[in-house]
């Protein structure tokens, strides 16, 4: 179904393809069920994304976003959106950059207000 961002991969999801580190060495085989430990290994090796069975990038991102308070998410979107006024929202990269900036804004607000 395509690549999913590391941040959106959750334990219990299943790998659709092998995960390789940059030099091509296989870290984890297709079909493996992901655990928290695997995610740490991906982070250590700089793996930013992986193919997950029956899950697209958008679905995984939406699932991760559902875990957030909708009010908080909406406020962050209202803050970030005006910045992107002159960009093309139809481009994959722009959409992803905006989405990540919204989530980053949520995280930074939490840090600033001390609510973790």
């Amino acid at each position: 179904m395509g690549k999913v961002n590391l941040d959106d991969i959750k334990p219990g999801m299943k790998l659709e393809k092998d995960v390789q580190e940059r030099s091509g060495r296989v870290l984890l085989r297709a079909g493996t069920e992901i655990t928290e430990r695997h995610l740490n290994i991906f982070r250590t090796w700089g793996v930013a994304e992986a193919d997950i069975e029956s899950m697209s990038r958008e679905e995984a991102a939406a699932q991760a976003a559902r875990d957030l308070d909708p009010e908080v998410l909406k406020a962050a979107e209202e803050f970030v959106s005006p910045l992107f006024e002159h960009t093309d929202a139809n481009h994959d990269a722009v959409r992803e950059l905006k989405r990540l900036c919204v989530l980053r804004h949520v995280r930074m607000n939490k840090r600033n207000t001390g609510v973790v």
Partner: protein
Amino acid sequence: MRGTLEIPSLPMIFTRIDEAVNNPRSSLADIGRIISEDSSLTARLLKIVNSAFYSFPSKIETISRAVTVVGTQQLRDLALATSVMKLFQGIPPDLINMEAFWKHSIACGVAARVLAAHKRKANIERFFVAGILHDIGRLILCMKDPNWMRSALGRCHASGELLYKIENEELGFDHASLGRVLLENWKLPASLVETVAYHHNPEAAARFPVEAADVHIADIIAHAMQLGSSGERFVPPLSPLAWERAGMSPGKLPAAMEQIDQQYREAVEWMAPEGSA
């Protein structure tokens, strides 16, 4: 624009390092000695090579060691990045907040460096210095015609237009092409000149399209993450061709942004001029 353009000169120390790096008869020790004569530059370079930029397993205590492990070209580029920030003084603070300006420049430099590192490019500090310099033409605009800049910022604020488009429309050129003039005057390498000149239209970069694409994307990321401010309020439009040329994919953004945040936090600390921060 009124007046003649009095172009600030590059710091002498950079010129001397550059000459030594380009002189096949200079030894590593010669280059180390030149750097060591400038104690504040020495201190700053040691901070950089001991930061998350490099993450070496053990501490680098001396410039001669830094020359060996980081390389002369990279140290030269870092020296340029850190020394150029002192050159522009006396710009009215209501036009551009210099601290915010350099923070945006650092963010763009860090982002360009991270993107280049992901592609395993050699000499990634040339991407860093390109990011540091990308908006430098705007400082010249502020120095040479503060009144025009004030009115342009006002128009930008009222209409929600992009500042660089207003520059082009009203002046017939923008801060990127002015940056090119400055860098050419400084006799900096063509790759740097072209990268700065085309950071808003990277399709036009004929000789260094990948470098220009990298800095174009880095600028967009720096704006989106709201690290510092160049006077431009909006994220500039992305060139789809540059995105392709840079070999980017949306999936690379999360890890890249994570690293940019981390390196940026350190970089603003060691780039701060003495006496501040």
